[in-house]
């Protein structure tokens, strides 16, 4: 671990000021950042501890939605009665991630910013364009079982590892960001994470000095809500494929189908065309296949992760079949 200065921010202005420096970072739960600092993957010179700046409330918004503080913990969010009753897909997604101990520490804002689990990213003695631009991608032609099959580039095939953001994407949540200049901007969670392209070091749209303050959910969306996570062991494992689904049926046909996918790309994957293809259709294998065809249209495996393509298709079948049964 490199030496760094540590400052407890009392108010958000402190945090903004400190983190405006590109070698500074904000730390909240630290469940990801501390690990990466020990490995010297992250080497900030300054840390601004933002645990005491507030932004940890979960409260109703003017339009009947829910504002979830960036500094509320994952656990507090998952057990919140409103989250459980109105946004069960979010509660389930959070509870399927990490372990109880980690969720107790991890915050919602930090969770959105968690970094990839790519083995080459976390080993500083291996090439990684995300960690060290221009050094190459170790995962291409390396061990790439966890890696992306959608939206990857020849620079980076890492995946975004989180679960919570997948549910937020299905819910079309908004991310509220305090900018370095002291104003606020809002970014749909669907646009918050980036694809690697030729800037693989960029995980998301946050600029230096920007801090996430809250995530807002729309007014309760109802429907059957499912979070399905496929993994090798039943706890404390990152998703091979995951699907967040909010589904409604009317007269035996899909009337709503908001789906988002984890484990497939550098961001939670969302494709509006999938809902379009499903709405008005009966829950048949043919319908499911059509949705999967759209999802996987541009899918490409890198050898070890080829299985994710059929696995995503099969998991989509399972989720839609199950959702249709429940929603009927």
């Amino acid at each position: 671990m490199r030496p760094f200065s540590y400052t407890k921010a009392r108010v958000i202005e402190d945090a903004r000021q400190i983190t405006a420096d590109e070698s500074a970072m904000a730390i909240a739960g630290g469940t990801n950042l501390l690990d990466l600092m020990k490995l010297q993957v992250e080497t900030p010179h300054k840390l601004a501890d933002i645990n005491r700046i507030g932004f940890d409330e979960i409260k109703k918004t003017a339009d009947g939605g829910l504002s979830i503080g960036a500094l509320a913990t994952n656990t507090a969010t998952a057990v919140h009665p409103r989250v459980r009753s109105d946004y069960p897909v979010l509660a389930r997604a959070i509870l399927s991630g990490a372990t109880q101990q980690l969720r107790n520490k991890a915050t919602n804002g930090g969770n959105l910013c968690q970094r990839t689990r790519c083995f080459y990213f976390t080993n500083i003695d291996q090439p990684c364009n995300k960690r060290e631009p221009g050094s190459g991608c170790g995962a291409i032609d390396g061990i790439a079982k966890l890696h992306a099959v959608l939206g990857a580039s020849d620079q980076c095939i890492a995946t975004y590892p989180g679960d919570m953001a997948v549910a937020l994407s299905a819910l079309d949540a908004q991310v509220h960001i305090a900018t370095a200049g002291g104003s606020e901007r809002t970014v749909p969670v669907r646009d918050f994470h980036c694809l690697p392209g030729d800037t693989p070091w960029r995980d998301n749209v946050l600029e230096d000095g920007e801090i996430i303050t809250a995530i807002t959910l729309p007014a309760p969306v109802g429907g059957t809500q499912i979070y399905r996570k496929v993994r090798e062991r039943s706890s404390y494992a990152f998703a091979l494929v995951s699907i967040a689904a909010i589904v409604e049926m009317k007269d035996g046909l899909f009337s709503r189908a908001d789906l988002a996918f984890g484990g497939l790309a550098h961001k939670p994957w969302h494709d509006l065309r999938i809902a379009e293809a499903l709405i008005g259709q009966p829950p048949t294998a043919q319908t499911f296949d059509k949705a999967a065809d759209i999802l996987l249209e541009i899918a490409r495996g890198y050898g070890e992760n080829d299985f994710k393509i059929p696995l995503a298709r099969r998991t989509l079948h399972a989720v839609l079949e199950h959702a249709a049964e429940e929603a009927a």
Partner: protein
Amino acid sequence: MTVHFKQDKPEQSNRLDGMKQGVLGKGVSRLEGLAKVTGTAPYAAEYPVEGCAEGVLVTSTITRGEVVGLDKDAVLAMPGVLAVIDDSRLTTRPAQGTANEAPKQGPKTISYWGQPIALVVAETFEQARDAAKHLTVKYREEEGAPVDPQAVETEEKDGTVRQGDLAHAMAEAAHSVDVTFTTRGHASAAMEPHAAIAEWDGDKLTVHASLQMLNYNISELADALGVEEDDVRLISRFVGGGFGSKLGISEEVVAAAIAAKDLARPVRVVMSRQQVFQCIMRRSETTQRLRLAADEDGKLTGFGHHAVVSNLPGEVFAEPVLQSSHFLYSGENRELMLEVARIHRMTAGSVRAPGEAVGMPALEGAMDVLAEKVGIDPVELRLKNIPEQDPEEGLPFSSNKLAECLKQGAEAFGWDSGPRKPRQHQDGEWWVGTGMASAARAHSISEARAKVTLKSDGTALVETDMTDIGTGTYTILAQIAGEMLGLEPNKVLVELGDTRHPRGSGSGGSWGAASTGSAVYVACKAIREDLAARVGVEETALELSQGKTSAGKSLIDLLGGEDIAREGHYEPGDIKDDYTAAGFGAFFAQVRVNRYTGETRVDRMLGAFGFGRVLNHKTARSQCLGGITWSIGVALTEALEFDPRDGHLVNCDLAEYHVPVNRDVPELDVLMVEERDAAASPIQAKGIGELGMCGGAAAIANAIYNASGARIFDYPMTPDHVLKAMPD
């Protein structure tokens, strides 16, 4: 006074059953349990040592070559840095179990990626870690080091067996199976990382370390340093899991000792989790071809098991995949061969039940294929093929409870012996099915010494350098001494893990309990003889319980203010060559396989085991539960991933190397089939710990097939493998 006992013939007297205290075999809770769960039991790195400097190992970033330069000055200028040590005595691999000497490659020669090459010492751990990462190393790299076991020529290990004509038997067989299984590398994955604190007092060295076999480790460390054993003291009172990874002296211990001498102050070296994964031991991956030839009824006529494993050039250890295959089943035409591929991945060595942990899952998977071909119940197939005696050596078994375990296990599990067909039971998205497998693990036993003192106050003290790696050694040794001397276990103080005590057997190969337990037994027997003489009876007639003789005379009175101390020295003796000794058992599993995703979860599992005398029902059962849990890991999740280009281990932490977690482990049942193995050890006990994982993975694999119709030949059976093999 040392009492020597060499076992040359079976111990039929069942002496321990005739004792009156009645504490042996009871489910006594661990005597050190409270200290462990309250965090007051100190582990190696936790001893408070004043003025301790902190060392961090520097590891190589090339696969093969030479270190030609270290830019020490730059690092020495960093805050707090005290030294950069690249002493030629630094070790770069762990010693293999029972090596008794140090690995001598030297830190300049690099033979695998991630190998230790130097130690940076600083005032604080963080300073040392930062400096270690900043040390610029100049290499002369040798390109093209082979890292893929499939891509190199193999060498045959000694011990190939060719009996009769297997090819002919296969050709003539009514039913035959010729299948190839693969298993992946495994890590021991002990919770406590490797750690050592070394301190010199003149020429005398004391090291707190986390080690399994102090009786060997002391010679290994002395050899590494070039000092006399008498000048070395090793202490490992508590070990947070070993699973083979702490059998031999490892790099951090030697480095701490050298640094402490150089700096003339204590030095602590704790490996990071990544270093433990990358520079301790891996279990070799294996490729195993099984050939089984059977007659119409399923009686084996031919048995072939051919395995390819790997290790670094120069390493003697080769995963002993065929260990139990040599004797488990009959079949007069036999061919068993082990080959080693020399590659530049990290050292392969003993990891949790070396050999059978991966050999049995392949063999028992093949047996399931055969049972299906023959069309008989897989339990029946095993029962038909239990040999009368060792089919290769012709030796009798010291004891063999395989048939009892199969029958009693099937009964307790509720095994359906009717015709079996895949995909008969569905529960929502899940196919549900059952599978079974035999368990076998060769019994190991070793020389051991222990000193027992019956104190004048009527308590006893047991002293040996034996370790307790979490298995319950403290407790069972107290029970053995308590049983022999008529004392409750809490009246027996057991001091372990210190080379000042007599040399025990060390913990490894599941031999600790039977070996060191026998040394305690021998010492106690001698003390009883002394007591019997005082009472005026034969030792065999002396009855002791609750600190008194049967006539009501107290031990305190008998002792008359004086201690009686005896050192028991047990040696296995010729009996080792007269019998084939092993633990046997059977596993039964019910699993569910998701028809969409190929995810597999274990619903329930039962293991039935015969491993000689049970010394403590509770700790024995815990050992079995741990073993079965490891079986789940072998079957479903555990796999080391090596980079195909430079051979480095990529998944080197507990988030990415998947051992089973609580939610993966369902209700497990353990059935202990009591027996007395008179030839295995004087106390009639055999090894327990490892047997619980020797074959269990196959019960799960066979259940996956029964549930879903996916016959898979590659462990672990992760969703990608299951989906590939699952019929539509």
